[in-house]
């Protein structure tokens, strides 16, 4: 079987790729994709811990379902906001949203 540490390293790498995407990208959709990658990394992490160490209880598995569903709701709201902003302003580049300053 694949050792637990490999999966954890994979999830860590995925999390940081997502983190980098969320921070470095300019396009709002790309930022959202980065955040989704981070959430997927969390799910892989949870799943690995559950499967290798704590498979006697279901709480880890249930948590994954919750994360999954909530992430979808969050994405739906986020995409709606992005579409709304795009229809109004014809851009979704985060740097172009600079009307608020002080």
């Amino acid at each position, binding site marked *: 079987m694949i050792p637990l540490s490999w999966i954890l390293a994979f999830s860590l790498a995925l999390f940081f790729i997502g983190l980098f995407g969320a921070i470095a990208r300019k396009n709002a959709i790309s930022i959202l994709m980065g955040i989704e990658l981070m959430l997927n*990394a969390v799910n892989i992490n949870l799943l690995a811990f559950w499967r290798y160490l704590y498979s006697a209880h279901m709480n880890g598995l249930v*948590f994954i379902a919750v*994360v999954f569903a*909530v992430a979808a709701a969050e994405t739906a709201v986020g995409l709606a906001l992005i579409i*709304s902003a795009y229809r*109004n302003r014809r851009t979704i580049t985060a740097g172009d949203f600079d009307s*608020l300053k*002080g």
Partner: protein
Amino acid sequence: MPTVNDFLLILPEVVLLIWALLILLIDLWIPDTKKYYTAVLSAAGLVISAGCAFALLGRTGSAFSNMVVLDGFSSVLSILFLLSGLAAVALAYDYLKRNAAQRGEYYTLLLFSIAGMMLMASANDLIMVFLSLELLSIPLYILAGFFRPRLASEEAALKYFLLGAFSSAILLFGIAWIYGSTGHTDFPGIVASIDGGRANYLLLLIGAGLLLVGFGFKIGVFPFHMWVPDTYQGSPSSIGAFMTVATKAAGFAALLRVFLVLFPAEAPIMAGILWGLSAASMIFGNTVAIAQMNMKRLLAYSSIANAGYILMAFVPYGNPVIAQEAVSSALFYLLAYALTSFGAWAVMIALEPAESDGLLLQDFSGLGRKYPWLGAALLISMLSFIGVPLTMGFWGKFYLFKTAVDGSQIPLVLIGLLTSLVSAYYYLRIVMFAYFKPGEPQIQPGRWASVVAVICAAGIFVLSFIPTPVFQFAAQMIMGMK
């Protein structure tokens, strides 16, 4: 399997959620010209839920196999959230009409968000912490953009959403590591695992750090504050007022409980980080606020500084004697801050014309002469922000500083005192505009904002004569928290 008792313990939340769902559907058949029905209905729901919360005051217990817990801490905060919600409904009532945004969803989303906050204050499981955090945040993302298609509002919502989702992902990663370390997500299970020596200390520490970052975004402390000024400025003012008070309080509720219960052993390391966050927020918030000429942005930076003050008392949380005092003084300060902040925002909303991004400080010129009541409310709020005696703000800071001194955090207290002095400059500048500059401010139609302003100011003043009973009450309420 859940029993009736389980539902009884979360009765306020259940009532509020069912009420919100009903309003969501009822509102579909209320014609656009009569949306005030929705406002009244939602206020009624908040009052009923607050009644349930009062009835449960003093009861303790955990429900749904340790998912949520009811204790004094959660009860008091629930009532605070519900009252903030009432204030947000009152502030929105005329304000939305003025801005031609009288849509029923405002009230439904507000109720959902408050239910999330209440669940967050009573969360006893990391799954619940995450779920309630999302339940409070997702409606707020929409509410921040409620003045669609106005550019500022959409921008505020987008920034809040992107940083909010980002911070939840970080928080979730922290939870995953804690689960990996202990095999539990419920607080009693995690504590048992730590006490039994089965938990991996390093993983737990990483988890605690990531949780702190996630909560840091929600409470808006430096350096996780970048969304705060833009979001508060661009959102509808009633939502800005609600967020400065309630979102912050909810973030602190979860932060305090999680760290007190789960991570007392990590206190030596966490205290250093908390120290840095607190000092940086106080210094940054107060100095940047000096440069602000827009009232909304000024209040936003002031809220960053205030988050720093509350964190100050929490730095020595590892000491069990101080911990109780820290939580009660944080609760007390949250109450004082709620009154003060709502007072200041309400005065601004009363004067704010349609289609504006917040008043400039000059717009308050002449307020004291033309509208003595509003002027007085503004004056009292500003004095309370500074922490002048005879206001709740003074006692709030007094207890925070006292806790920090008891925890021997003298340098931090000095930073707090000095930054309070700095803050006096920009708060008093508003008062100077209101009282010593000639001008003709105009109250907008509708009196609810003025009513909220005067009630808050009266509360700040009157409660300042009985600080000890209030503090004792807070201290007594959190006795059974562990």
